[in-house]
């Protein structure tokens, strides 16, 4: 065999260094914390897997994880079909295309903490446009600082408002890539609108929708800023999602060990779910 020049690996070195400093080394300190106990003064005691056991058995963690799963499942159930429906309704050519695309992209351009603040003010019962309208015009009691149901409705609607566009744009990209001949052939084959959607549009959108669901899963599972600014996890603990709880433990209580263990469990769940989902979605692709 011809001897190969291996020096090209040197080109990878800068990336390796970059990743080491911004991901691997910080990650390792988290791993360090997760197996040790400290009382300050840089004194550490070996703790083994104790923190992991404690977190996995803690009811507080279970509750936060449950809320997190509920949130993610809810927004996926709403955003994916809604996004596909909007993409189907959008014009494929003509004057309105850029208008629709830009309008769709706008919510995604707003920083997360601004979105949280906007919705916070929007829903205030005394001065917020929505809050005032609901309470004083429609006479429906709506106060997300008092009522857990109102708080949940608000964070879900806020996320739908902020992120459905992502699904729309990806689904739209999938739709416009379908050659016209497919629609013409379906028309000649006498296919109904539903059959066109089921057998042409949906299969052609599958790849982009897989990406859309994956992105929305990861983002929503790790969401922090928007609900933190909007509800701060309240009222009570009713909207305390995993990330909010994690920050409370790490920076509020300064329990670095349990917080580190929780981070790693959190990370493992996200990774595992993403991997599972992606594998399931793509495993039929090469099957005969």
């Amino acid at each position, binding site marked *: 065999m011809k001897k190969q020049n291996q020096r090209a690996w040197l080109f990878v070195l800068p990336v390796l260094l970059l990743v080491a400093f911004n991901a691997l080394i910080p990650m390792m300190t988290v791993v360090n914390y997760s197996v040790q106990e400290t009382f300050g003064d840089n004194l550490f005691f070996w703790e083994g897997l104790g923190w992991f056991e404690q977190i996995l058995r803690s009811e507080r963690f279970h509750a936060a994880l449950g809320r997190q799963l509920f949130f993610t499942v809810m927004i996926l159930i709403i955003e994916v079909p809604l996004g596909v429906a909007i993409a189907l309704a959008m014009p494929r050519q003509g004057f309105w295309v850029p208008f629709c695309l830009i309008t769709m992209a706008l919510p995604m351009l707003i920083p997360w903490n601004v979105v949280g603040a906007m919705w916070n003010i929007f829903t205030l019962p005394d001065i917020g446009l929505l809050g005032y309208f609901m309470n004083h015009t429609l006479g429906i009691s709506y106060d997300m600082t008092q009522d857990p149901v109102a708080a949940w409705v608000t964070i879900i609607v806020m996320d739908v408002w902020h992120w459905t566009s992502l699904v729309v744009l990806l689904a739209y990209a999938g739709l416009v890539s379908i050659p016209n001949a*497919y629609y013409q052939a379906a028309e000649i*084959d006498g296919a109904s609108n539903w059959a066109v959607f089921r057998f042409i549009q949906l299969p052609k959108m599958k790849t982009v929708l897989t990406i859309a669901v994956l992105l929305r899963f990861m983002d929503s599972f790790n969401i922090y800023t928007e609900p933190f600014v909007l509800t701060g996890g309240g009222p009570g603990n009713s909207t305390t999602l995993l990330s909010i709880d994690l920050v409370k433990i790490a920076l509020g209580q300064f329990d670095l060990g349990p917080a580190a263990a929780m981070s790693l469990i959190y990370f493992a769940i996200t990774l595992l779910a993403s991997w599972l989902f992606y594998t399931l979605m793509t495993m039929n692709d090469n099957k005969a």
Partner: protein
Amino acid sequence: MAQIKLSNLRHSYRPDPRGDDDYALKKIDLTWEDGGAYALLGPSGCGKSTLLNIISGLLVPSEGRILFDDQDVTALPPARRNIAQVFQFPVIYDTMTVYDNLAFPLRNRGRDEDIVRQRVMAIAEMLEVSDMLNTRAANLSPDNKQKISMGRGLVREDVNVVMFDEPLTVIDPHLKWKLRSKLKELHQRVKATMIYVTHDQTEALTFADQVVVMQDGEVVQIGTPVDLFERPAHTFVGHFIGSPGMNVLPCDVRGGVAFFGDKELDLEGPLAKAGEGRAEVGIRPEFVSISGNGPGVPATVRKVSDVGRHKVVEAIAFDQRVHAILEGEAPNAGDAVTLEFKRSQTRLYMDGWLASTPGGGA
């Protein structure tokens, strides 16, 4: 099954067409007889796909009517015209099996599963895809995908016409030949009217009984492959069909006699009408013979190409390029020769259109 009649058809993609140039189809009057094998031949952009889409109902013509057996279908959508169309790129339903793909047009029309099974099996057998019926269609090779597209077009037994829009574009050359003869065979078995659109003369001439040649949105000639080859109605057809195409040489007409340079040429027969205009003589390279010093048009050989079965000689006579196809011995480049045109195949064209009539001597 029906006779298809296009009457006074005009189509423009612009909302407010002004001159003839704005029309993709200028004026089409055509009748497709039931059960015929037709080819629609013309260069890219001549309007043949437009014409096809008008017949299938994907496009509504700006003017004129489409009649299926005297029933006006101009306003009917494709699904109600009972036609089938096969597109340039294979259209298959990725998530379905080959069987379900072939069954799709029948199931959409609510046919019994028994009939569906029977038809799908028959078509699969004809196309030689019986062993793939349970395969996911997405995993097929391009030529098999195109076969499935064709199969979906042929699976309904009562279609008025099956149209093929350059269906072999994406197929490998060695499979093209196979699919082409398959199509011819299918036409003989299913006996549906078929219209085959192509810009490839070989495809058109091998498939069709009647070839419709189009140029710039107009039908230039309709005829059998032999007609098109031997008596092109227009110099365009002469150029477009044949390899190399017909020699078209500018000439002068004086008193009903054609002169090429200072040589008088014997035409196939008298002129249909004496007219003014640009006169040209058309002769196929197959009917030009070369001798060392006989009577005829003096010329100099410029190039000889050996294309296998025969040699193509390019000669210059009166500053015009003349091709001749020779079997066997050919002169060398630079030789001075004389060209002889076979009289019965020497035609006169006025402003592009055939003006001489047959009936002259040998």
